[in-house]
């Protein structure tokens, strides 16, 4: 299976006051169509890793290939182009634009692909329909529930037909029932062949994914196959 993400010895240091070496040589390969979770305690570097994967942040040394393109020292414009073409984001806090209705929010990535307004709104409606939100298309984000908001965000991530979906704590702001629903949606999206990477600290969420990458103090502690979904909630398999 072809790799979609290839990280070679990625290092990242923050220089806010005392230098903080956050990522200390990350090597990682993710294949097309995988359903992966990245786990780790806070401060383990998992958010930094996701930001680098999403070209929202840059790294100091190493190489990052996304879809066989070296992502390094890109201009903001170029980075924006790749984000638009290759990556769909799902955030913990949804990040919908508050003064646009659901349909307009979903259609926004197509605006930056210079798709005409009528066309992109039509496509946005199709995606909302797929996610069961057709009746809510003309509602503003503040009229939607958390689960609905996240489904709008997922529709927005999908509309540009990206290569990967990056989800940063996608259920972090949701109750457990809605969490399950949202995760179900993500799973279904993955089943269509979409590569899906979820950052989470909830083992229940991680257990739904097929592969768990565990970060600790800026290095990958282990990568385990979880295709059986029998991963213990505490994650201490060796003690079991």
């Amino acid at each position, binding site marked *: 299976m072809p790799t979609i993400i290839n990280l070679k010895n990625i290092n990242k240091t923050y220089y806010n006051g005392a230098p903080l070496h956050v990522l200390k040589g990350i090597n990682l390969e993710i294949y097309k169509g995988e359903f992966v979770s990245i786990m780790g305690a806070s401060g383990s570097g998992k958010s930094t890793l996701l930001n680098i994967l999403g070209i929202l942040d840059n790294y100091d040394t190493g190489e990052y290939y996304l879809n066989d393109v070296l992502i390094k020292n890109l201009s903001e414009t170029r980075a924006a182009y790749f984000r638009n073409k290759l990556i769909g984001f799902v955030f913990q806090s949804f990040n919908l634009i508050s*003064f646009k209705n659901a349909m307009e929010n979903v259609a926004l990535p197509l605006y930056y692909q210079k798709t005409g307004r009528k066309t992109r709104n039509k496509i946005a409606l199709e995606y909302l329909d797929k996610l069961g939100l057709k009746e809510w298309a003309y509602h503003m984000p503040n009229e939607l529930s958390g689960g609905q908001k996240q489904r709008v965000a997922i529709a927005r991530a999908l509309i540009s037909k990206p290569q990967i979906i990056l989800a940063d704590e996608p259920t972090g702001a949701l109750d457990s029932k809605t969490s399950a629903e949202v995760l179900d949606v993500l799973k279904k999206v993955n089943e269509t062949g979409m590569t899906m990477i979820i950052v989470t600290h909830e083992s229940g969420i991680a257990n739904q994914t097929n592969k768990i990458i565990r970060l600790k103090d800026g290095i990958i502690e282990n990568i385990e196959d979880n295709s059986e979904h029998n991963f213990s909630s505490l994650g201490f398999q060796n003690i079991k």
Partner: protein
Amino acid sequence: MISLLHEILNTIRQNKMRTFLTGFAVAWGIFMLIVLLGSGNGLKNGFNSNFGDRLMNVVQVSSWRTSIPYGGFQTGRRINLDDRDIKFTTDEFGNYINFVIGNINLGSKNISYGTEYLSSSMSGVSPNRIIVDGAKIAQGNGRFINELDIREKRKTIVISQRAKEILFKDQPAVGKTVNVSGIIYTVVGVYYMEDRQNVTTSYIPISTAQIIYNRGINLSNLAFTLNENISDKETNDEFMTSYRNRIAQRHQVSPEDDNAIWYWNRFEDYLQMATVSKYINIAVWIIGIFTLLSGIVGVSNIMLITVRERTREFGIRKSIGASPWSILKLVIVESIFITTVFGYIGLVCGVGITEFASQFFEPSSAGRDSFNAFLNPTVDINVAIQATLLLIIAGTVAGFFPALKAVRIKTIEALNNK
């Protein structure tokens, strides 16, 4: 571009309060500037209208009886200006003077044509009087008194438009004869004055007046126009002092005797008015510029807050593929759009109110003695457009720098901006 405008209109529709506040600052700035400049212009025009089309640089000299004993003469001696004073003035002060004219006031006379008549003041004048009074003769309405009339002492008369209407109704007047207290004159011209429509003074050649009305070589007054050598208060004062002394010497009266020979210097009045209107102008511009400045500060402030408020939105936009330039464009075009639309509204309101106000300050046509304090309080449209353009540029700059700052924030930090 259309897509961008749609995007901006959407933003504006959803942020009505913000848009309104920005717009209000702009509209108010332009509106106040125009109202202020309009008021200033109104005052200035009011002043200027009091001079009408009359020449500004005229000095009039008249004589009466002495009030100060001088050179062995008692007071109460009658002083007469005459034709020799015209020659004297031209010879002695030619360097400062364009031309000299003599006038004879004949008082009120009855002028009749057929059964129609009116009582009008009459003056014996020289051809240049038309310039001094700012009178005009329309095409086809004949001519003013000319040199030939003077030389041949013709019995010609120039009447006013008003007098013509009374005497001749719709008939042409030029070429007809009128009867002035028993003496027949031929009408050679009909004049009008733009600022004094009811004037009825009639003009006849000065030489004719001197003969018919037994004035010899005497004049009621003489008037001359100053040339460009007299340009300010100092040169004017200097000239007047020396002229006074020479004329007083000639007529053997005290130079201090204002009763014997007196002067009316219109240029002096004009200089005073010009100074006043200059200061009004300066004051209005200073206030106007500060008003505009407060508008600019208002716009800048709101743009600054707006951009700060939208940092997170920009982060979201960037995360789904907006380039920095597209964000910058979004802010700047929105800023230009708002300042243009509201600047235009302010412009229209300001011009509207000044035009409306100018209806209330119609030029007075009551006559020579009426005074306009306020007239035509309108603004040069170019000034108004320039002010609006300035505000648009200010709005753009005001939006540009905060937007640039917002764009430079890393996408991830912008996303985390709460």
